[in-house]
């Protein structure tokens, strides 16, 4: 007798075989009681699954209510958050306008201090640049330092590549 077709029976039941495979299974089934029995048992299993889960009692109307209330709750949360953000922004603006006469003087003083600080930082930067450019052979020193660092890196990479993995 030709080879059994057990592994194709599932797809055969579901009509998921190509023509050639289907014909082969059909011709085998007509002569093999063992595979016929296997097919019947698999079909019985399929029917049982379908029957069991089709008969499961579905959740009632409260299910839809629960889903929709969860959605509404999240929508409200998002809405409340947006309202809060807008409210906060408006409050800041109103407070800014209302306190303008009072805060005008300190505001200008603050601006003066900030611009003074910025000037100090930029002058410091300028001084540092001038000192560095006045140093003799600066570019040569940088080149040498870079070459040393590169050489060290290269040596490290080579020694890492030479390392063997630790065996357990």
């Amino acid at each position, binding site marked *: 007798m030709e080879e059994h077709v057990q592994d194709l*029976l599932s797809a055969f039941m579901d009509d998921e075989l190509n023509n050639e495979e289907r014909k082969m299974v059909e011709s085998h089934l007509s002569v093999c009681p063992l595979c016929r029995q296997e097919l019947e*048992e*698999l079909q019985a299993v*399929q029917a049982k*699954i379908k029957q069991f*889960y089709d008969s499961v009692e579905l959740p009632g109307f409260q*299910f839809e209510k629960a889903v929709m209330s969860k959605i509404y709750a999240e929508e409200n949360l998002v809405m409340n958050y947006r309202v809060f953000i807008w409210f906060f922004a408006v409050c800041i603006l109103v407070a800014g306008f209302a306190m303008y006469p009072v805060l005008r003087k300190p505001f200008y003083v603050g601006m003066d201090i900030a611009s003074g600080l910025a000037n100090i930082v930029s002058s410091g930067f300028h001084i540092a640049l001038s000192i560095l450019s006045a140093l003799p052979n600066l570019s040569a020193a940088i080149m040498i330092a870079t070459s040393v660092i590169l050489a060290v890196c290269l040596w490290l990479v080579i020694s890492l590549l030479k390392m063997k993995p630790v065996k357990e």
Partner: protein
Amino acid sequence: MVEQDLTRLIQQAKSGDIDAFAALVTRFKGEVFRHAYAMVNDRMEAEDIAQEAFVKAYYSLDKLEHAYAFASWMARIVSNLCYDRLKKLKKKAALQTEMDEETLSRPASNIERANLRFDIRDAMEKLSPEHRTALVLRDIEGYSYDEIAKIMRIPLGTVKSRINTARKALKNELSRG
């Protein structure tokens, strides 16, 4: 519900019509709940997953490209939620087993074990989540192998072998009971 009406309902829901979405929940709650129930084997958990799936679907509706793919898109959402829930339940069960081992003085006798009833749900629980999903999508939801491959994002050959293995395992479990 006629296919055209359904497509219109899905499009309305996509454009933000909350009543249309509520109608979709009513239409699809059976499929979604059965899928979840077959996966987690617990009514309360299944109901919770099904609700979560619809809420998740509502907020991702703009990602749904074609209205006709709503059902399979929902099936993917439910599958993913079920995987997550099963992972959590497995961790919880492992913890529970540890506690039980400490507290139980007498293990169940052979007779008690033999008396355990093997029904479909017990047998389904023996399958891996991946095999269970393939079988649920085929035998409970009625998807073709090609659709299952797309929903689960696996090759067609894998769908074939998973369904085949799952049915054989179920057959063996049920015949033992």
